[in-house]
């Protein structure tokens, strides 16, 4: 089955991101397809490359990045939600003349159309953090 997974929760604030991560890992292990990860609302914070959790805790963003790389997943961070929350790639940093960018290279900033397109073409859309 082909899934789209939507993540609305920031890492550490709620269980949404970790639950979504475990769900994605499980569905891939069972041979399902993951058409797209869509990080929306507070979920955009999962795309930050600057998080520094304590060393004896799970590094959730690192775990996401490894999963995305391992399975060559399409990981989209909603651009409008990201700009509001200060998650920027180099292009947006330049556009808004900000001092830094922080989007990890495994993620892409894009619009809500990516969510709708994935939703229209997959079998199931599963949301975490609503």
């Amino acid at each position, binding site marked *: 089955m082909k899934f789209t997974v939507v993540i609305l929760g920031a890492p550490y604030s709620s269980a949404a991101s970790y639950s979504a991560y475990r769900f994605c890992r499980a569905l891939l292990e069972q041979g399902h397809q993951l058409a797209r990860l869509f990080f929306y609302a507070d979920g955009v914070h999962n795309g930050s490359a600057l998080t520094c959790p304590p060393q004896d805790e799970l590094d959730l963003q690192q775990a996401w990045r490894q999963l995305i790389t391992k399975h060559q997943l399409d990981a989209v961070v909603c651009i409008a*939600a990201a700009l509001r929350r200060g998650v920027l790639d180099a292009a947006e940093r330049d556009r808004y003349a900000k001092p830094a960018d922080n989007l990890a290279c495994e993620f892409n900033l894009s619009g809500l159309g990516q969510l709708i397109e994935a939703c229209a073409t997959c079998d199931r859309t599963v949301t975490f953090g609503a």
Partner: protein
Amino acid sequence: MSAIVCISRHSPYGSSLARDALDAVLAAAAFEQDIALLLMDEGVWQAYRHQQASAIEQKELGKNLSALAVFGVEKVYVHERSLTRRGLDRDSLSLNNVQLLNDEATRALLAQARQVLSF
């Protein structure tokens, strides 16, 4: 029948989710998807008539809801029991083209949906 049903279950200004849901519905309409919006639980407050968002420096969400029809979103539903539980009724709402759904109709709406977007 709707290909995508968006369930919106959060109050209009307590978190960003109500507005995020509305943006997703508008995006679906822009991509010519058959989409329905279902307001449920605290989400029914989004359609409440007497919003004064400017007092908290926010844009009025109810106005965006009213504009949905302009963007081709014809199907806006309100879960009736969520409404009555909060002491509200149809007259409390800013939308006049909204359809109230009882539990059975709500179940049927979700059962026939090809995709459900939850907010």
